[in-house]
């Protein structure tokens, strides 16, 4: 648009660079958590996650095999092996045998051991200890190495958080609880709101304008106001804290937006189709289920995404209406907040737990972005 009249914008490069910077800035925090969820706790506290993509130089304290594995070769007693545990590895740059001088030798050097004998270490971590007398003691010799390790990632955290964890670490139950809250809390308001929206869009009755204005007003009522009165109400009718209560609460809180979005969409449907159907003898119920509902699919999808994201990500409503003292019905957001309190330093658990809860909405987001954007536009631009 700015390139018309033959003037090529000189800003193109600047624009591209600024967008790269902006996207980078917006992605960087999430990326950090994502990368951290694939690192072990030690790795996370040893170096910043942004360094994990590159080979890193680290100091390790390793131990040779114990003296009881020694073999006799002629006059020599020999212990051989590799310093690195299985699956790990790296390129040793310097090593030493005392914690004060961890860089006295380069790979291939032979060091004199204090207790007698010698040790030779190569770059890959293979070592050979030789002595003219048997090695003694119950543990191996300590070797201090500085090694460059390749980037290393693990899916262990996910295994722990999803399946094998204990207590607060385990998210499987919270995951299902969240799902149990979310799905009915998304579908029920759609059903309820679709009927109401149809009535407000295509049926003539007294008080319709007033009802529409009321819906618009209720759109912005903060749900904070509803907490105590509704908790009292739920306790009063005997459902207390539980799934039923949280579904009803989410339904109530989601309805104004649902009715508003759906009604605006339904009003725009072609009048001819509906009137023809009525002339042909269709009842309102038939018009609604056979014509309006299928045609309104985009609006239904928009609201479904909104409500899904909102109920999945919700903390306050679940805390007030669902989670009781036993904690059996905890949802993921609540469990993550608890983890923040009890395991604020264990980033590997925290990051993984957070990502398990983020993954589903992100998937929905990328799959159905079109409808989300459409709904946002219908909901706010007038």
């Amino acid at each position, binding site marked *: 648009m700015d390139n*018309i009249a033959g003037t090529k914008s000189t800003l193109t490069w600047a624009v591209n660079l600024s967008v790269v910077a902006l996207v980078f800035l*917006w992605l960087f925090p999430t990326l950090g958590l994502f990368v951290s969820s694939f690192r072990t706790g030690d790795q996370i506290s040893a170096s910043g996650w942004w360094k994990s993509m590159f080979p890193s130089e680290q100091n390790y304290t390793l131990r040779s095999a114990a003296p009881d594995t020694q073999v006799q070769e002629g006059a020599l007693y020999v212990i051989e092996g590799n310093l690195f545990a299985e699956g790990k590895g790296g390129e040793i740059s310097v090593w030493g045998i005392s914690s004060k001088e961890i860089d006295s030798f380069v790979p291939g050097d032979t060091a004199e051991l204090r207790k007698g004998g010698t040790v030779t270490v190569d770059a890959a971590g293979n070592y050979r200890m030789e002595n003219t007398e048997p090695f003694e003691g119950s543990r191996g010799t300590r070797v201090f190495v500085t090694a460059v390790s390749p980037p290393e990632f693990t899916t262990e955290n996910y295994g722990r958080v999803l399946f094998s964890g204990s207590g607060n670490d385990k998210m499987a139950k919270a995951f299902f609880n969240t799902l149990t809250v979310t799905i009915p809390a998304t579908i029920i308001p759609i059903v309820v709101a679709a009927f109401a929206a149809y009535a407000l869009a295509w049926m003539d009755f007294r008080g319709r304008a007033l009802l529409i204005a009321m819906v*618009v007003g209720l759109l912005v009522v903060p749900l904070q106001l509803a907490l105590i009165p509704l908790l009292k109400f739920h306790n009063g009718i005997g459902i207390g804290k539980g799934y039923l209560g949280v579904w009803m609460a989410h339904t109530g809180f989601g309805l104004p937006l649902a009715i508003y979005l759906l009604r605006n969409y339904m009003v725009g449907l072609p009048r001819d189709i509906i009137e023809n159907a009525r002339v042909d003898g269709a009842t309102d119920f038939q018009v609604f289920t056979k014509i309006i509902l299928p045609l309104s699919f985009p609006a239904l999808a928009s609201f479904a995404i909104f409500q899904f994201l909102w109920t999945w990500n919700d903390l306050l409503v679940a805390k007030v209406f669902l989670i009781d003292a036993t904690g059996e019905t905890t949802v993921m957001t609540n469990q993550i907040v608890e983890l923040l309190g009890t395991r604020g330093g264990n*980033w590997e658990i925290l990051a993984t737990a957070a990502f398990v809860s983020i993954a589903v909405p992100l998937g929905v987001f990328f799959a159905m972005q079109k409808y989300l954007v459409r709904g946002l536009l219908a909901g*706010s631009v007038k």
Partner: protein
Amino acid sequence: MHPALQGLITIIVGVSGCIGYFYFSNQFLDKVLFPARGPNIGRNINRANLVRPWLFLFPALLALGLYLAYPVVETLRLSLTERVAGGGYTFVGLDNYKQLAIEPKFWEAVRNNLFWLLIVPAASTVFGLLAAQLTDRIKWGNLAKSLIFMPMAISFVGAAVIWKLVYDARPMGQEQIGVLNAIYVALGGDEPMTWLTIPFWNNFFLMVVLVWIQTGFAMVILSAALRGIPEETIEAAIVDGANPFQIFFKIKLPQISGTIVVVWTTITLVVLKVFDIVFAMTNGQWETQVLANYMFDKLFRANDWGVGSASAMVIMLLVLPILVWNVHNARKEMR
């Protein structure tokens, strides 16, 4: 029973109950109450059509009334009462509000909320506008938009964890694993900072999280508005020799001012209700209290329903102008 199975059963029961109501109530109306046959067929159809809108509306109205309208009234009533020992309530007039007025934590929350209200909508709108304007001009703009928009899908709690890692501080001498401190130390900062415990400024570190989330929303809406600008106006400006900055500030901006207001108020509403971020990151400590979290504290920790309801009414009062404005606009549109 396995939680998944339990969930599935409840989903089926809940949803089919809902659909069942609409189906059977309509059947009842058409077949039993006012059947479309017999001597009074015309009258019956008319009557059925008088009743039907309310049949369609009934569940929605019930839920709206019970879950949104009634709580406003009830909260107002509760804010004027106090629980007495042994159950029951007494009317105490404005005592709860007086109690609020002398609590320093309340004023701290009000002060912080004002800062939130000033900064978050402004920053989100500006960043959103910037992102919208820039991404509209490049080839990979849609991908860029998608990525900037992505935090919208992340829960406030998830965002809190993400940003806590950014703000993480390790003791002096250790490797810094929080980006902010790593940069700070690399730039010559003498000591890693625990950003979230620095009074006053920590509020801004919390606001960054919400700005990060809301920018995508602002961008999407404003980008649509920018595209809706008639091209002739821009062409005319180019022909008259306007440079890109003049086009943006003098031609485009005035034409989307209405949308900017909508975005601004929508984000303002989000800010007024902000709870999760503060709850998860600082829980109102180190002078980061906000109204919604203050209210939650009063209601569920101090168990003081009177004062809690009073602070909820304060939030309602702040929302009220937007509510009136929205209703006014909606009515204007319908005419």
